[in-house]
Every structure is written in C-alpha cells, then in structure tokens.
C-alpha cells in the first residue's frame, strides 16, 4: 500500500493502519533497532512501540516521508532503551563504538562560546551532508544514523572493512572542520 493511503488510514483512525505499516515497514524498523540493541526481542518491542507512537502522532502529524518518520521513532526508542541498558551494564551493539568514533568529531570549546542546541546542530549536519558526495553521505548516515556495522557497510559498498574505516575517518575529520568553520560547540 502506498504511504499516502496508510497515512489516510491513520487519519481515519482505522486500526488497519498499524497492520499496513507493519506489513511494509516492520523489517526496516527492526533493522534499525537491531543495529542498536542487538537483541531480537528488544528490537521487536521497539518496533511495536513505534507503531503505537505513530498511532498517537498521526494525526495531527502528516509525515512527508513515512519511512523516515517511523525510522526516527524507532531509532529514538532504541537509543533510549540502549541508554537504559548501559545504566544496567547490559549495553551492546554498534552504539558504543559509534559514540567513541564521534568523540573525535567534537571541537574543543572556549569558555565564552554557547553550546548549540540539537535543532541547530541538525541543521548544521544537513549543510555538511548536503556538501558531501553521495557515497560519502550514505556511508555517514548508514554508520551514524542507522548504526550499521562496518562489516555490513563494507558489503554494501563492495569495499574492504579497512577501506570503510578509512573513509569514515576522513568524513569525521571533514565534519570536525565543518563544525569549526561554523563555530559549532557541543
């Protein structure tokens, strides 16, 4: 079913909307969650919670891109669950590695600078991504949005894992320079 029709079902408050969403996007959402949590049951729980959040959000929302809308919900729910796990010392998956990689992107702050808020930061990231070649942009998003493993990425782009790591390293350096140019402080 087309996304617009699924969204219409949400607006009509027809519960079949959830079934149609699951039919089309369960695999997509599950992949996002599983990359973060590495646990089938927890990922499934996040996916089900995604449907509930979508049901509560539409209406009033009418997402332009249902896949991204659902993906963002799943990602946020999975990150929240991951944080809870970390507190319980149960964390695993790609998140910790990705976080440590992102450490090197953060510019050092001076005392007079104000930390940027998340919305502005996302806008700066959009500008950065917009200036990247497509393949580099996809690699960045796959690694830090989808939390995809280096191995899977290497397979996606038909390159070796070391090539994928090198490419990501260069992209992170470019991002750091971009932040410095824009005066971004985290």
């Amino acid at each position, binding site marked *: 079913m087309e996304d617009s029709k699924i969204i219409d079902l949400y607006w009509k408050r027809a519960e079949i909307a959830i079934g149609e969403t699951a039919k089309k996007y*369960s695999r*997509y959402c599950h*992949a996002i969650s599983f990359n973060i949590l590495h646990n089938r049951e927890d990922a499934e729980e996040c996916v089900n919670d995604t449907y509930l959040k979508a049901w509560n959000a539409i209406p009033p929302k009418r997402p332009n891109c249902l*896949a991204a809308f659902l993906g963002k919900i799943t990602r946020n729910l999975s990150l929240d669950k991951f944080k809870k796990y970390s507190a319980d010392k149960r964390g695993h998956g790609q998140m910790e590695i990705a976080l440590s990689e992102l*450490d090197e992107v953060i510019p050092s702050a001076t005392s007079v600078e104000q930390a940027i808020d998340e919305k502005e*930061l996302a806008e700066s*990231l959009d500008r950065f991504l917009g200036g990247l070649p*497509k393949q580099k942009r996809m690699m960045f998003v796959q690694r830090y949005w989808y939390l995809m493993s280096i191995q899977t990425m290497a397979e996606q782009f038909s390159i070796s894992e070391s090539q994928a790591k090198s490419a990501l390293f260069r992209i992170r350096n470019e991002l750091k320079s971009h932040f410095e140019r824009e005066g971004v402080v*985290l």
Partner: protein
Amino acid sequence: MKNEKLLSSIGNIADKYITEAQATEVRPPKSKVVTLFRKPAVIAAAIAAFLLLSAFTAYVVTGGDLWIQKPSNDPKETVRSAIENQVGKDYTISVEVESIEIDGTETVRVVESFISGVIAERRGWSDEYLAEHFIVVKAVYYAEYDHTQTTRSDGNVVQYFYLTRDIDSGEWTIVDNSGNVNWSDNLTAGNEAHTGVSDEVRSIKEQMLSYLSELFTEAYTPYYDGLHYEMTNYDETIVDGACTATFFWTMYHLGKGWDVAGDEGAEMQGNFSLQATVTINDNGELDLSTISILADNSASGPPDYCLPIEDFFPDQLAD
C-alpha cells in the same frame, strides 16, 4: 555526554538523507534485476513429466503449490493471477506486474527440443495438439518480500511460466516456471512417478531430495528401520548459479519402542526446518562440494538457520 548529543542530533537530519541511505541496506534497490532461470533441460524435464502424468492437473489446481493460480482460457491471465496472488502469502510484501507476454520462440524451442519425439510419440500427441496445449509465458514483475520469512530476493524478476491446457475445460494451468518448481511438492523419496520420464538432469529439488535422503539414511540406518522422507513447503531461489532453498524435511521411521513400548513398529516422524545453499554447475547439477544444510534454531518468530544438519545426527554407535 557531548557525543551522545551529536548522535541524537544526527537522528534529526533531513528525511531525504535517511531514505537515501536506507536504500542499500534494508530495502534493496528497485533497479536490481533478478532472473530466476533454471537450466532449460531441467525445466523441460519437468514439463515432460507433467505432460506424462495427467493426475498432476488436479494437484496443481487444488493447492499445495507455490503459485496460487486461477486457471483461465487466457494463459496470460493465469500467470497474472499467480503473480498477483503472491500478495496473499505471508512472506510477500508487494508485487507489481510490469509485463506479461507469450514467448513464442521459447514455446517452439521447448516443444521441439524436449517434448516432441519420443514423449509425444508415446502419448500420441501431434504437433498441432502440442501447439494448442502447451505454451510459455514470460512475465516481468517487481516483488518485495519479507526477508524474515523467505530467502527470495527483492527486485525486478524476469520469469518464464510453462502452461498446459486442460482438454475438457480449455483452461491454461501453470505446470512449472523458471526458478521454482510448483508441481512436485508432494514428491517423496522412493516415489517412482518421475523416474523413466527423461534422462535429462533432474530438477534441483529432486537432486536436493536425493542428496538429503542419502545423508539421512547413512546417519540413521544403524538406528532405525523403514526410513523414508518427505520434502514440503519447498521454496527455491537461484541467482547467478547459486541456489538457496528452504523447506520442511520429514523423516519417517519405524519406532523401536525404546521410550514407549507401544511405539515399537509404529511409524514415527522427525521434522526439520532446513535451508540448503549450493552452487549449480553448468549442467544444472548440484555441486555437492559446496552444499550446506542448516537447520532453523529459532524457538519462535522468523527462522534462524544456523545449525549444521550433521549436529542432529546420532553418534552413539560411532567409534
């Protein structure tokens, strides 16, 4: 932590970048063309088998087949119904037919190469009869599958369907197609129905059945009598000479009464959900040096094929 803030902000990047990167991982690109094509000799052997075994008609129509088809007087409509009805299956997310056409060249080639001659002579089929009762239809469609439930590949599929026409009703029925075998789901080891039909290379499913039968017989003969096997829910995908098949495997044997005295002599069964991966050589035969048989290890939910079948085999009598 600052890096968590950054990771969180990355979550709010523009939708277009999210969907752009999504394409290669969780949603294979639509431009990918998957041509499901078995060796012509194998296909022809299947068709010949069908034409020789009239009893198959009822089976194909009544169910158990991979194609939920609605026989029609128009062979293209029969194929269309089969493709579109895939949506009714649990593992299919969507199917979109792009084109369906009768392939006259392939029809003539299959008839001339494999059906006419000995088979036609034995059955008393004239060329005119064959021309009216056998046809090949080529279909191009886009299919998206739930990969938690099937190993089939998404993408634009080019597939050939082989149909025969019922003498009484005039309706066309799919008896085989490239990529999947839909006429022999009830095939069991020891079933002689297909032997003697042709010396052509056996279908992949038949070869798989034969290989597994030998494997199980070797493993279980020291323990059980009356061994025979059944392969059901068979689903096969072939891409670039690599075959992946999933199926249920049932091993029947006579009980020894070791656990329950009353079971002695009674037919028992063991069931396995298996996935086989194997390379197909140029002759359409399985390259058994590459075969891997894995069993589903999931207690519930989507299958998780990870256990080598050999792990199940008993070793009490081993040295």
